[in-house]
C-alpha cells in the first residue's frame, strides 16, 4: 500500500503543472487592460496610467515569458502578491486555509456522523415513520438555498437571541488572539484557544463557528442521508445478510457487523468529495457569516481577475483533490477487504 500511496503522490506535481498551464492558457483570453483593471479601482484619471501598469506587471509579455517568470518564482517558494488579499498569496493561504479547515471539520464531522446515522435508521425502518421523517428533514435541508437558511439562522440566533455571532471572533477576543500574548499554533481559533488554555476564547470561537457549521451541515446532511439510506437498503437485501439472519445472528450484529461497513463505501466516496468541497471554501456561507476563508478569498479573486491569487488557490485545490482521492481509496480498502491497493 505504501508503494501505491507514493506512486499516487508522484502524480501530484504533474497535475499541478497541467492545471497551471490550463489557467495560464485561459488568461490569454483576457486583454492586458482587463488584467490591469485589478490595479485600478476605476477609470484612471490618466489613460497612460493603464499602460504604465501593464508594463509594471509585465501583462503584455508573451505567455511563455509570463509562465516562466511565474514558474521560477514559485520554485523559489514565492506564490506572488495577492492584490485581493493585500498580502502574499502564501500568507493569505496560511491565514484563510486554516479558517476553512476549521469550519470544514466542525461541519464535516456532524455531517458524516448524523447524516450516516439518520440514513441507516431510515433504511432499517424502511417506509416507517423514522424513514419518512428523515426524508422530509433531508428534502427540506437540500432544497433550502444556503443563503436563505444562513440568513434565517443569523437573524434568529444573532439578531434576535444573540446566542451566536457572525465573524470568527468577538472584538475582545480578537484583540487577544492577535496580540503577542497568544500563540497561533494552527490558525484554527477553537484549537488554538485550547492550546493556549484560553477557554473563554474557545467558547467565543465556538459561538462564532456554530452558525456557519450548522448551515453547511444542514444542507449537506440530506446528501449523505440519501446516499447512506439507499446504499444500506441495497445491502440489507443481499444474500449474505439474509444468510447472517438465517443463521440466527442478533439483528443488531447483522446490521452493525455485516451490512453497515459495506454500505459505507458510497458514503466514503461522497464524503471525500464533500470534504474537498468544504476545504476549497464555501463562498455563500462564508459571505453570509462574514467568515473569512478560502471561499470568500477565491470568489473575490475571481471577480477581480486576480490571476496571481487564482493560480495559488487553484494549486491548493488541485493538491487537495489528489490527496482527498487518495484518502478515499485507502479508506475503501479498509472498509472492504476485497479491495486491495497495488
Amino acid at each position, binding site marked *: 500500500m505504501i508503494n501505491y500511496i507514493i506512486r499516487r503522490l508522484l502524480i501530484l506535481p504533474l497535475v499541478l503543472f497541467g492545471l497551471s498551464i490550463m489557467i495560464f492558457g485561459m488568461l490569454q483570453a483576457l*486583454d492586458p*487592460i*482587463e*488584467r490591469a*483593471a*485589478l490595479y*485600478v*479601482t*476605476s*477609470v*484612471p*484619471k*490618466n*489613460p*497612460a*496610467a*493603464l499602460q*504604465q*501598469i501593464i508594463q*509594471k506587471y509585465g501583462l503584455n509579455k508573451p505567455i511563455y515569458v509570463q509562465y516562466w517568470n511565474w514558474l521560477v518564482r514559485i520554485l523559489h517558494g514565492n506564490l506572488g*502578491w495577492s*492584490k485581493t488579499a*493585500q*498580502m502574499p498569496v502564501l500568507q493569505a493561504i496560511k491565514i484563510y486555509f486554516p479558517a476553512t479547515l476549521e469550519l470544514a471539520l466542525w461541519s464535516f*464531522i456532524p455531517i458524516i*456522523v448524523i447524516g450516516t*446515522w439518520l440514513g441507516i435508521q431510515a433504511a432499517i425502518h424502511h417506509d416507517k415513520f423514522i424513514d419518512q421523517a428523515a426524508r422530509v428533514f433531508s428534502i427540506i435541508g437540500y432544497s433550502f438555498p444556503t443563503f*436563505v437558511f444562513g*440568513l434565517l439562522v*443569523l*437573524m434568529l440566533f*444573532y*439578531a*434576535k437571541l*444573540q*446566542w*451566536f455571532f*457572525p*465573524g470568527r471572533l*468577538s*472584538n475582545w*477576543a480578537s*484583540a487577544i488572539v*492577535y496580540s503577542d500574548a497568544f500563540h497561533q499554533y494552527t490558525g484554527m481559533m477553537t484549537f488554538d484557544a485550547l492550546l493556549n488554555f484560553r477557554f473563554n476564547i474557545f*467558547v*467565543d470561537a465556538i*459561538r462564532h463557528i*456554530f452558525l456557519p457549521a450548522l448551515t453547511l451541515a444542514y444542507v449537506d446532511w440530506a446528501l449523505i442521508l440519501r446516499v447512506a439510506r439507499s446504499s444500506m437498503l441495497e445491502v440489507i437485501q443481499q444474500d449474505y445478510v439474509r444468510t447472517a439472519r438465517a443463521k440466527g445472528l442478533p439483528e443488531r450484529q447483522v446490521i*452493525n*457487523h455485516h451490512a453497515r*461497513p459495506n454500505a*459505507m463505501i458510497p458514503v466514503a466516496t461522497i464524503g471525500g468529495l464533500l470534504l474537498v468541497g468544504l476545504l476549497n471554501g464555501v463562498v455563500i456561507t462564508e*459571505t*453570509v457569516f*462574514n467568515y*473569512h476563508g478560502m471561499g*470568500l478569498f477565491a470568489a*473575490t479573486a475571481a471577480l477581480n*481577475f486576480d490571476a496571481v491569487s487564482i493560480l495559488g488557490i487553484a494549486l491548493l485545490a488541485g493538491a487537495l483533490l489528489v490527496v482527498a482521492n487518495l484518502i478515499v481509496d485507502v479508506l475503501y480498502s479498509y*472498509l472492504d477487504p476485497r479491495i486491495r491497493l497495488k
Partner: protein
Amino acid sequence: MSKPIRKSFLIISMMVALSMIAAACGGPAATTTVPTSPPPTQAPATQAPTTAPGQPTSTTAPESTATPQATAAPPSQVKNPNTFIDATIGEPESLDPAFAYDTASGNILINVYQTLLFPNKESATEFVPMLATSWDISSDGMTYTFHIRQGVKFQDGQDLTPQDVAYSFWRGMIQDRAGGPQWIMLQPFFGLDVQSFEGDVVQKQFNGDWTKAAQAVEQAVTYDNTNWTVTLHLKQPYGPMLQLLSGTWASIVSMPWVIQQGGWDGKPEDAQKFHDPAAEQDELFKVMNGTGPYKLDQWLPGQEIDLVRNDSYWQTDPLWDGGPSGPAQIQRIVVQDISEWGTRFAEFQTGDADMVYVDTQYDSQVDPMVKETCDAQVNCTETNHTGTARLFKGLPSVTATTIFFNQQVNTTGGNNRLGSGQIDGNGIPADFFSDINVRQAFNYCFDWNTYIQQVFNGEAVQALGPIIQGELGYDPNQAAYSFDLTKCADAFKASTWKSADGKSLWDTGFYLQYTYNVGNDQRKSAGDILAADLLKVNPKFHMEVVGEPFALELKDIVGSRMPIYMLGWLEDYHDPQDWVVPFLASGGTYSGFQHFPADLQTQMDQLITQAVSTSDTQARAKIYAQLQNLSYENALDLWVVQPQDRHYEQTWVKGWYYNPIFGNAMTYYYSLSK
C-alpha cells in the same frame, strides 16, 4: 463498521453537540454593557462605502441577497462604550497617504495623518489651520507660505519640522504611482497638462534626467527650519490650491521615520528608485505614523482595521467652535469590511455596530429602526418613539452619474454595440452621436422624475451639467433638458441621418447597445427607463441595455468602443475644476474618449485653463458657468443625477456631522463620542 469505531463516532458527535450547546448557553459574550445611554439631541456619524475618490464611481453594489426581516432585540444600552464599530464595506488599497486613492484608505488616513489645513467642520470651501498655523498667498497667486505649527509630535515621539512637510510633498510627487492621486499635486507645480511625473516631468521637461527633475521638485517646495515655514512655488496661479492641500495625498509624514522604513532619503539622485512602487513594495503600505488623534493598531486585510487613541495627541484647542480637542473620546475604532448586507444589518440591529453603511436599495429595511430623522444641519425630529437608530437624510453628495455619448466610436475589428453599423433600422454609424439632434433627442427622452423616484426614493437632484450643486459656477436656474416625448420625437425628426436609400432616421429606426457595469442596478435602471421611452416615441428605436464586468468596461472605455454608457464620478477635491476637466477637457478622464468637435473642444480647453489660473473667485465662477452652459447647449452628455446621501447610526452616537468632502465614505472619528 466495527463496534469501537461506532463508539468513537458517537463520542465525537456527542462532544460536538455538547460543546455547541455549552457555547450557546455560555452567557453573554464579552461585550461590555454599560447602563448609561445619553440619547443626544444633536449628533451625526458617517460610514464608508468604497469608491475611489476623485475617480469614476464605477465599481459598485457588492451584495445581492434578500434579507429575511426579523425584529431585533432593541439595543437600549450603549454597547462597548470605549469602542466604536463602523460596519462598512471596502478594503484600503494602501495605508501610504501618497499612494492611496480610494475612500476606504482615506477613511483611515484622515484619522491618523494630518494635513496643513482641514475643512472647517461642515464647510467644503472654508479651511482651518491644522499642521500650519497660518498661510500667506502672494499677490500674483504663485507663492504660498505656510507657517508650520510648533510642538506637534508624530506618534513615534519625534517632533514635526518644516522639513517633514516639504519632504512629504516631494516624496508624493516623486512616488506618483500609476493610477494614483499625485497628478493632483503635480499640476500646480509643473503645469496644467501634467498627468504623470515620469512621462510629463522627467521625460518631457527634463529630457529623462531624474536627478534634475527631483531637484526641481525640491525647488518647488522649500522649507525653512529656522522660521518654521514651508513655501510652495507654483508654476501658475491655481484656484483650488487650498482644496488640494487638504486632501489625504497631501498628508504629512515624518522624514526620519520614512527613511527608517526603507523609504527615500531625500537625495535627488536616489529619487528614481522610489518612483511608482507596487503597493506591497511601498515602505508605508501597512505601517502608519502620523500626527493625528488615532494610531494604527492592526490591519487584518479583508476583515477590519483597528485604530487606538493617540493619548499624547497635540491638539489642545478646538479647530472650530465647539469642535473636539485633547485626546479622542473613544479609545478604539474598529472599521469592519463586511460585504454582505444581511450580516452588516444584523450587527446594527443588535447594537454591536455603532454605524452601518446602507446601500440605497436596503434603506427600507433599516427605516423601521429609526427613532429620529435629521438633516445636514442636524435638525432632528423624533419619528418613532420605539426606534433605536438615527437617520440623516438629504445630505448633498459630491458624486454624480452621467450617460455619455461617444461621437466617434472605435470600430476596429468590428463592434456589435453598433449593430449593423449603419442606418438601416438594425444599427447606427460610428459617428451617430455627432448629430446634436440625436444627442438632444436622447436628453428629451429621459424621464428624470421616474428615475429619481423609483431608484433614489426621491433623494437625488437632476444634474444640470458637469458642475454639481454646491460648487462654484452652479446655477440652479440654468436651462436644462426635461422629459418631453414630443420634443424628443421632433429632435429625432430633425436629425440629418439618412439610410442608404435616402429614408430619414425617423422612418428607418436604429439599434444600439447601452452599457453599464454589471451589478450596478441604478445604472441598469437608467438604461431601462431610457430604452422604454425611446420605444414609446418610435417602435423602431431599439436600445439594448447590456451589463459588463468592470474590467471589460474599462477596456471598452479606453478603447472608445461604446456609443452610449453610464458612469459616475466622485470628486477628488471640492472645486468645479475637478468636474470640468474629466468631463469636458481634451484628454479628460471621460471626455478624452468622446471625440467632441474640434472647435468646441478648443474653446472649452481655453476656458478651463483660464478658470484654474486665476484666484479671483468671481471670475472663476463666471467661466465655470459658461462651461456648464456649453455642456447644455451642445447636449454633450445626458447629465443624470446628483444623489443625496443617507447616514445611519445608533442614537447613542454623538458628534457626527456631514461634510460633503468626506461624504458618507469617510468619518472623522475624532469628533465622535458615545
